[in-house]
């Protein structure tokens, strides 16, 4: 579905990603594991078009997308739930969700999709007239995920969706992600809880200093010595 080859990204002379090749298959729940600053967020932002690669190609369902602008990439069906949520704080919950369906195809199915999101997060329905900036962290994360779903994505990418949330909220968010995956959306997940994400994923990549060092089935990686030492604290 998504095929990245020999991707290289640099910021002002500093290389952030080097020779990264990744494949995401339809229906997968792919985990990307790595320490802070390894380049995980850069990878998602490059896929989304916020960052332009110096070298390499990104192909989505047969189309080259690495030179497209972010709005065009959203229209192709790739959506990101960004780290820090990046909501519109002085717009209501409902308006934030509507913005998620900004593209023309999504706009046609707006009310249908909205019902679906409200079903997924009943709390958002209650708070739909509240300004997004006044919500709790967990609720904001729900809006961020809901907003991404509004575009009817084929590929949903989540960047640290549980960061800073209370344990109960973390569970809820991750459960929802699993739920979305189960209903047929391909998911790429970056999650600080490495053990958990390796447990639930179909496949995973390990990213270190901007390069892929390991890849494999989640369960295989759980048994890998390096992973155990570096990420699971065993």
């Amino acid at each position, binding site marked *: 579905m998504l095929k990245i080859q020999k991707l290289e990204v640099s910021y002002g002379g500093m290389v952030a990603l080097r020779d990264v090749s990744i494949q995401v298959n339809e229906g997968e729940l792919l985990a990307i594991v790595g320490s802070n600053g390894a380049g995980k967020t850069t990878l998602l932002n490059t896929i989304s078009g916020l960052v332009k690669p110096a070298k390499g190609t990104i192909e989505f369902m047969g189309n080259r997308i690495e030179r497209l602008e972010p*709005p065009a990439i959203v229209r192709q069906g790739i959506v990101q739930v960004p780290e820090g949520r990046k909501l519109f704080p002085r717009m209501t919950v409902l308006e934030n969700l509507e913005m998620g369906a900004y593209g023309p195809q999504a706009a046609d199915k707006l009310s249908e999709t909205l019902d679906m999101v409200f079903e997924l997060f009943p709390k958002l329905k209650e708070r739909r007239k509240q300004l997004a900036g006044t919500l709790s962290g967990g609720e904001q994360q729900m809006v961020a995920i809901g907003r991404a779903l509004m575009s009817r994505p084929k590929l949903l990418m989540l960047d640290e969706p549980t960061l800073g949330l209370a344990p109960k909220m973390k569970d809820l968010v991750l459960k929802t992600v699993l739920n979305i995956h189960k209903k047929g959306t391909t998911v790429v997940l970056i999650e600080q809880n490495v053990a958990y994400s390796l447990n639930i994923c179909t496949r995973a990549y390990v990213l270190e200093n901007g390069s892929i060092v390991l890849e494999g089935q989640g369960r295989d990686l759980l048994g890998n010595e390096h992973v155990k030492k570096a990420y699971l604290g065993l």
Partner: protein
Amino acid sequence: MITAQIFWQSFINGILMGGIYALVAVGLTLIYGVMNIMNFAHGEFLMLGMYISYWAFTLLGIDPYLSVVIAFLILFLIGTLIEKTMIEPVLKGQPLNQLLLTIGISLFLSNMAVFLWSSDNRSLQTTYSNTSFNLGNIVLHEPRLVAFLFAVVISIVLYIFLQKTKIGKGIRAASQHKEGALLVGIDVKKSYMIAFGIGVACAGIAGVLLSPFFYINPTVGAAFSFTAYVIVVLGTMGNFVGALIGGLIIGIAEAIGGIVFMPSLKQVISFGIFILVLLFKPTGLFGGQQ
């Protein structure tokens, strides 16, 4: 010492002038709020609006109030073109570059006006330029009243546009979180173009509304832009409603302050308000809501 009649006359004058100020400031605050740049050429777009009205009336006999539409379209077009070709390339650059650019545009526009239309003052003489009626013992000058009503209606229309339409919501989203807007598929560059076009068109419309009773020359914008900057800061930079209320406050403060003290001090009065706001509430009157 000041009679009630003079006081209320000044008060009404202040409100009517405040409406025009507000319309100029609304455009400026919209551009600032969305793109995070201060448009130092704002007054010159007001000047262009005045000339559009003048020439439409003089050459084609078009009533200034119809020119509102013409000026909106022309200035929206000029604004989007300038945004696309000049402002967009410097948006990611240093704030100093943006400042130099908009000041450069302002110099260019006023010099262009001198070059094309000379520096002579001009006035529009419509049949209603000087008509007024009495309300009790207060004189209401009709073109000012009409200008005020236009300014209020246009501000409301613009508010509804931003609140209710898809493009308007997209502009607001882009102003609140640029990356967030990009990630949901909003064409932020287009939103900037539209916001800049609308912002300068507001200044242009204010110029058209002033044209039946004001003088027109290439440097007339400067007198209005200073007041507009004060209002934008007073009403919290980027805050639409703040600019409206700030416009009225400054209009009234100048009018009342002008008769209580000395008219030459009225800019000192608005500047005093400006400094007090900066000292005690640097984010402006509506800073809490940001």
